[in-house]
């Protein structure tokens, strides 16, 4: 079954690349807009199919190792982008969002694809809620970052980009707060502690605290729009370090993510 998953993922990668090409080279042409959207949705359907097959293969949600979480993370990024297209008719963010999703998906293919059973400590709804809300938050932070970059670098559509940047941060923060809550409960029930003094937990706290602080400063008038946009860009760098940097550079209890 892993063969079908690989085929679906590679087909999705190819179609994402095609969609990125359309956005970059034919952005201004309206006729290509529906083309790009069709290609994107097709790629997303294949990506979703791969996730479903992986769930069937492993008999659990696809979130138990680096390969699965990267697959899910890129899927969540694309989903958030499709929602933005449908809601705002804003496709330009795809120039930033889709390459990020594309890179994450390609990297996922380089990770080991072991399909072992879920460790007993991960067999709980709290784990699934924790991981789903974490990656949904990561995807929204990524979307916010893309909108922030657009806001800082382009002169048109500023209000939309700012709107997406703020909403991405707000929803991302809400979901990440829930992720911290569900992760704490899971940790307490599984290991007897909602908090561990280890790098991933500490960086998750840093990320939550940072975004909380950035939103707080914006709403208490400490940040102007540019400040918020820069806050989102720095937040994305922290996110990358929390997700990838900690796993690569430090030993952590979150070996799977």
């Amino acid at each position, binding site marked *: 079954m892993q063969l079908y998953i690989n085929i679906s993922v590679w087909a999705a990668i190819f179609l994402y690349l095609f969609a990125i090409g359309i956005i970059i080279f034919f952005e201004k042409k309206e006729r290509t807009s529906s083309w790009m959207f069709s290609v994107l949705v097709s790629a997303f359907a294949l990506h979703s199919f791969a996730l479903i097959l992986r769930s069937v293969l492993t008999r659990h949600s696809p979130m138990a190792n680096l390969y699965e979480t990267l697959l899910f993370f890129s899927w969540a990024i694309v989903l958030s982008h499709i929602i933005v297209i449908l809601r705002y008719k804003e496709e330009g963010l795809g120039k930033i969002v889709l390459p990020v999703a594309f890179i994450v998906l390609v990297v996922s293919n380089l990770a080991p694809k072991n399909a072992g059973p879920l460790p007993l400590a991960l*067999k709980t709804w709290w784990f699934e809620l924790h991981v789903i809300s974490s990656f949904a938050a990561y995807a929204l932070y990524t979307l916010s970052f893309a909108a922030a970059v657009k806001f800082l670098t382009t002169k048109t*559509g500023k209000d939309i980009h700012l*709107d997406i940047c*703020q909403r991405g941060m*707000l929803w991302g923060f809400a979901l990440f707060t829930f992720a911290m809550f569900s992760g704490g409960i899971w940790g*307490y029930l599984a290991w007897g502690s*909602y908090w561990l*003094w280890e790098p991933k937990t*500490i960086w998750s706290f840093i990320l939550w605290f*940072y975004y909380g602080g950035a939103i707080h400063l914006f709403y208490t008038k400490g940040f102007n729009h540019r400040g918020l946009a820069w806050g989102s860009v720095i937040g994305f760098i922290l996110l990358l370090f929390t997700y990838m940097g900690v796993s690569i550079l430090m030993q952590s209890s979150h070996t799977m993510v």
Partner: protein
Amino acid sequence: MKPLLNFFTSLKTTIVLVVLIVLASAVGSFQIPMNPNIYGNLSAGILIPWFISDGYLHLSSTWWLPALTLFLTLIGINTIVCTIQRLYKIWGRGINGSFKTAISPYLPHLVHIGFLIGLIGHFIGNAYGFKVSGNLLYKGDSINVPHYKGLYITLNASKEIIGNDGRLAGIIDDVNLTNGKDIIKKGTIEINRPLIYKGIAFYHSRHGNSPSGFILKITESPERNSSPLSTETVKVQLGGRVRFAEGKELVLGRLYPDFALDKSGKPYNRSNTFNNPVQELSIYNDKGIKNKTWLPVGRKGDKTSARGIEITLADYLWEPYVVLNINYNPGVLLVFTGSLISVIGVFSLLFIRGEAELVKNRNLIRQKFIPKSLKTNDTSRTL
């Protein structure tokens, strides 16, 4: 008093504290994996007692912990002062309009209050309570619950659940909590489902079967190389005794994990690891005269002999055991209550106050900061 109040209500204070908390945490995240000899048992214990006993000795590495505690305390005070100030102002305006309009200004402070409750709980949990790992329990055994006089836990049974695929799907430990006489609580401990009694949580850490004794073959021969008079197989528990032949008794003494003899022929342990396990045996005859010998117990078939008696290790007696972690965190309820309030607060902001309104209001306030040339009138693209 006023300068202090101004300090704690200042936005600059908040910004500086947020930055300092992030920096101190980041330093800690690098220090922990770089110094496993210092931080190895930090998560297994309680922060403040650990810091007083261990962390304090390595201040060059652990300074970020008291710094982080100080900054979190200051931001806690900052949050309290600002929240009270804002709530006072909102309350002063009175209740106008619909329920949604009336409640909306309070919602951000629900997040703050949740954060504060969680922070207080976190401080309590880092100062008091206990975490005791490695509590070994054999089936039928009782142990005293650590740090709690007069409370005992008894393991009635431990059962492995095997799934349809033949793999381990779960473990259920059937236990009783007693006061020494009566059962206070009956319950089970499973993975992800600890037994909780008065805030004390009992977790399954690991389980297995452990040798609890030996099956020994005892052969009596009157003289060396003569045919045996009798052969008998007996079961004996560690530290136990058993009768064999007529009037003879075998007593299991000390078990040496890494047996050696010193120059005077006296036995001792070279280490505490099971490199050369040897069981001390005492054999009493019907007149009460004792012979001492040592039986290697590293593998089946090991043997020893003493005065016409040959003792062979035929097999081991196995007994199931579980190892429990027993934790008590007096602040955990506050932490989860505070976190839940924060979650409710954040989602209430989005759903009751409305994220569209949050963004719109802020944009209206900020509109003056955007140059006119960058403003768009294309409202059809926003909600």
